[in-house]
């Protein structure tokens, strides 16, 4: 009798455990992840080199951060399973919606009063304050630029770093964007609200969706980039609607662990929105891909989005169902 139940039970566990869905992390065809390299002996890190195409080491979904910046996740995970906690009858949030697959975490970024007010004006489609598509006001869902640092804190996917003596150019898959981190010794704009380069060919001050970035090697294996000169609250920090302002400065740290890996961290300093600096991404591990690995296109088309909202997104509200 015991055996009659044991064999099917083992088979069931086998199905669940061996299922790629159970493992849950995504895989792009042709990519190589840490799970593919068990037993691999790491080769030494090259000196002062970040060039190459990089993919989250745990799987293609490792940098998506759908419910908010990874180190300040807007939902609570069950520490045992790593899954997001579910509450059967969740309370309404300030947006008026209950979020059944996502509970408010114990941690929150250190908002200023303006930061809290700005955050509450945002209606994200993910995180513990999420709303239906029909009533969201997330700029990227109108195909506006996600900007920086959201590109690192939401939908951070395959990226390629082109390194020259004067700069690092980073190509991003999501929304097919790129940015430049200057390494030619120039200074970060001194006034983040009137940002401009002070190089001989510098242009007049102008805020940017992607800011102004400079970088330097802190040591042979650690590259630190700083960015300021942003627009005001036209972009969100992450997919949960955390705010950013034109006073923000972002520090990225790329630590080359070995030949195959870089760890990426992001620190936010924004005295208008947050009372102190805080870490939004803590050592996200990236894995080097083959030189022939191609970056998929993931463009946002306004006309496609209009079509989507006409037939689906705009009809998902619980009241009038009007389009956003």
């Amino acid at each position: 009798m015991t055996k009659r139940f044991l064999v099917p039970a083992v088979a069931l566990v086998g199905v669940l455990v061996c299922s790629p869905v159970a493992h849950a992390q995504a895989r792009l065809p042709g990519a190589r992840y840490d799970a593919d390299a068990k037993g691999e002996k790491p080769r030494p890190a090259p000196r002062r080199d970040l060039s190459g195409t990089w993919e989250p080491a745990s799987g293609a979904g490792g940098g998506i951060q759908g419910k908010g910046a990874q180190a300040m996740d807007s939902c609570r995970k069950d520490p045992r399973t790593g899954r997001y906690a579910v509450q059967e009858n969740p309370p309404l949030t300030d947006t008026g919606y209950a979020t059944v697959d996502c509970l408010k975490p114990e941690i929150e970024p250190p908002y200023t009063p303006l930061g809290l007010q700005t955050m509450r004006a945002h209606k994200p489609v993910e995180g513990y304050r999420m709303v239906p598509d029909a009533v969201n006001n997330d700029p990227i869902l109108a195909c506006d630029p996600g900007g920086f640092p959201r590109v690192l804190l939401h939908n951070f996917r395959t990226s390629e770093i082109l390194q020259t003596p004067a700069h690092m150019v980073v190509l991003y898959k999501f929304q097919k964007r790129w940015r430049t981190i200057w390494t030619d010794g120039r200074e970060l704009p001194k006034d983040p609200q009137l940002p401009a380069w002070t190089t001989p060919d510098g242009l007049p001050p102008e805020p940017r969706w992607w800011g102004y970035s400079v970088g330097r090697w802190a040591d042979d294996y650690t590259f630190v980039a700083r960015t300021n000169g942003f627009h005001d609250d036209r972009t969100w920090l992450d997919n949960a609607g955390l705010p950013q302002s034109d006073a923000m400065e972002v520090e990225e740290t790329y630590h080359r662990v070995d030949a195959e890996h870089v760890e990426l961290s992001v620190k936010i300093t924004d005295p208008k929105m947050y009372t102190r600096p805080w870490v939004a991404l803590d050592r996200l591990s990236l894995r080097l891909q083959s030189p022939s690995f191609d970056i998929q296109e993931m463009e946002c088309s306004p006309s496609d989005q209009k079509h989507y909202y006409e037939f689906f997104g705009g009809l998902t509200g619980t009241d009038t169902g009007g389009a956003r």
Partner: protein
Amino acid sequence: MRNRLAWTLGVGLGLVIVSVPVLAHHGAAQFDVGKRVTVTGTVTEWFWSNPHCFLRFDAAGENGQVVHWVAELQSGPNILPLGYSRQTFKVGSQVTVTLEPVKNGRPLGRLLRVVLPDGTALPLAASPAANNPQ
């Protein structure tokens, strides 16, 4: 014994299928989480896009009237590894769709499984998931 094993494996496979974590640009605020609806109908549009693809299909309603269903999927690049492509659905073909419906009662939902006219079921169970648990 064989029946019990088949039953258990069937349940297991079902759990795997329905537990596919859904990665989309949005969360679950608009969906009746856990509810499942299965509908057979005729494809009227297959829209391949980012951040969402969707499948429109017409099915007979309870009173014989035509119901215009729309089932959304993830972004095209995300569902390629699951066996979908821009050529997966042809207008006029018959499909059977299992979806998680929206809360407001409209004939909308997120697609969990679809059976094509040749009997192929998507997403491919053997395919690595293009989803992530976040």
